């Protein structure tokens, strides 16, 4: 099966928003000679976790054969996608191709992994091909629990977008906001934790509020939340007070936690209504953004990598699955609390995992792992904040390194808030460069 034909795929044409290569019986291979004896590492998912794992495994040990399976020809970052809504960014600026990674000698297979055989150690592709591995790394991101909210499923996402995977969904939401008349209401619903990027719903509300403030000042945003608190809450509240008049009569944003009937129960797309709380109060809006409850990406369930929580338990020193040997799970799909499901966290986990896989294949001891994460949130014009953390392993659990990390200070100067916006943009430039070049 290492004998994969080298047909070149015409990626030069027609790669539009959300075009997937799955189902197309063609793929692109790197011009690398197959090494007969080389150990094989296969990676599923060319995102924030998978790409970093692939790249650093090749950097750490160029004798290893690394194959990356990705279902799309281009990647749209979710991170910074909220800047579509304040007009700071175009969707094109979120789009990246994998061409810049050619120099690392990673074999790219543009197809969908549909099954894993953990006994025979093979990945089955949608085109029928099979890929054998010595070690498999799974970084498929998230999937939605479509059956968990009555009235909300894939059939209605054209009308009520989730925009929780970037690309066409984000564009639909932006178009709806542009089309909305001044004085309209936007509803955002937030699922119970854990979900992908726990600060992003509030960042989204903030940047849409910025857009409303400039262009549709009589409009408002209601956030219905299945949680009672959220990360960086004090900082958001400070920003919302300063920028959007929260707690005043004309507030652009209102946040309704679950203990005040904020949790979503049912959706009626036809009526553009949602029903919230114990008594299923009806709430109507011109634009509705439902962020659905989430679980690990589909492929994780095929191989029995996920537990009842819907996420994948792992050994945090190596990210090897607690349920299947020789398979590692990183990124949003794995359970690595207190690390949030974020791109920087996935990146950091990928480096630990890369070192663990290389060490295992070389028969060496895994060095002491180290983990970190930073989440920038943009709250409005010249108003950025951050949370950062460094973690270490203690008795099999991730612990914050004491005294390190934490939030941007409350009531910081306007200058500091402004600098954090510039640094958030720098974070984005550098992390995407690390992923795609």
């Amino acid at each position, binding site marked *: 099966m290492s004998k994969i034909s080298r047909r070149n795929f015409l990626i030069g044409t027609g790669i539009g928003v959300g075009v997937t290569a799955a189902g197309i019986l063609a793929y692109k291979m790197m011009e690398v000679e197959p090494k007969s004896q080389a150990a094989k590492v296969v990676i599923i998912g060319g995102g924030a976790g998978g790409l970093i794992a692939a790249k650093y495994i090749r*950097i750490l040990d160029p004798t290893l054969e690394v194959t990356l399976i990705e279902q799309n020809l281009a990647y749209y970052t979710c991170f910074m996608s909220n800047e579509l809504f304040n007009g700071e960014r175009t969707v094109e*600026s979120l789009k990246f191709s994998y061409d810049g990674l050619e120099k690392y000698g990673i074999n790219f297979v543009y197809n969908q992994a549909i099954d894993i055989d953990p006994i025979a150690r093979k990945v089955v592709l949608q085109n029928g091909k099979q890929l054998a591995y010595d070690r498999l790394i799974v970084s498929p991101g998230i999937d939605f629990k479509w059956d968990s909210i009555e009235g909300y499923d894939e059939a209605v996402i054209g009308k009520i977008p989730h925009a929780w995977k970037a690309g066409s969904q984000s564009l639909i939401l932006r178009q709806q906001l542009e089309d909305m008349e001044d004085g309209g209401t936007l509803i955002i619903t937030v699922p119970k934790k854990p979900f992908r990027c726990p600060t992003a719903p509030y960042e989204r509300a903030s940047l849409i509020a910025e857009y409303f403030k400039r262009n549709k000042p009589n409009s408002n945003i209601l956030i219905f939340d299945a949680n009672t608190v959220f990360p960086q809450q004090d900082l958001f509240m400070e920003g919302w007070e300063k920028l959007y008049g929260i707690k005043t009569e004309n507030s652009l944003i209102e946040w309704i936690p679950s203990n005040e009937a904020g949790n979503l129960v049912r959706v009626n797309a036809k009526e553009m209504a949602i029903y919230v709380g114990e008594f299923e109060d009806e709430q109507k809006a011109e634009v509705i953004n439902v962020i659905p409850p989430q679980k690990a990406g589909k492929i994780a369930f095929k191989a029995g990598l996920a537990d009842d929580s819907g996420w994948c338990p792992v050994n945090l020193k190596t990210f090897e699955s607690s349920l299947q040997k020789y398979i590692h799970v990183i990124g949003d799909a794995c359970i690595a609390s207190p690390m949030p499901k974020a791109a920087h966290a996935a990146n*950091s986990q990928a480096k630990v995992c890369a070192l663990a896989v290389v060490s295992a294949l070389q028969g060496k001891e895994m060095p002491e792992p*180290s983990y970190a994460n930073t989440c920038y949130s943009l709250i409005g014009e010249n108003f950025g904040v951050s949370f950062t953390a*460094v973690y270490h392993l203690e008795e099999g659990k991730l612990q914050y390194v004491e005294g390190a*990390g934490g939030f*941007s200070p409350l009531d910081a100067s306007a200058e500091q808030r402004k600098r954090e916006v510039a640094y958030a943009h*720098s974070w984005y430039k550098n992390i995407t460069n690390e992923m795609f070049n």
Partner: protein
Amino acid sequence: MDYKTTRTLLLVSGLLFATTTWANEDNLPLMILNSCIVCHGFQGSSLGPATPSIAGIDKEDFVETMEAYKNDEIPSTIMGRIAKGYTHADFQVMAKYFSKQTFVRYPQQVNLDKAKQGAVLHKEFCEKCHKNNGYSFGDEGASILAGQWMPYLRFNLADIRANVREIPKKMKKRLDKMLKIHGEESLEALINFYGSLTERK
């Protein structure tokens, strides 16, 4: 700089990398660098627009800077919080790695007239310590300024003037003298000059 140029530049900088071997753990202490390289670039050269490049930094000065961040002696938006997560020994490993990297200078949007004025001002007031037009690390750890990201220089100079960032008395004297003779605009002239420097002359 438009999106396309950036992409081309990235490719070029990446190719430099392909010729280097890292297979040895000693060369690439990935765990200790894990987080730094997300924000500062794999080889210590940031793509901006504001986060500074730290490639080619002097070893000793690097460790001092990190210790100063850790002890909240240098104002920062985030480095103070990050530095507290690492030990002195970690800093030495980082210093060894970043000091060996080459500072890559990316084109920035500059006002060439201002840059020209800045070149003259630099010679007179700054060259003594920030040698070779600020391309090299000077004595007493005078930072590399040539090709550093302009917003970062702007932030630092603002902090220096507000007396919240400590610098050698002599530098402060020179800076004050320059501002007295040439006015506020002289600062932007210098920043544009450093931002305009790409390839080493």
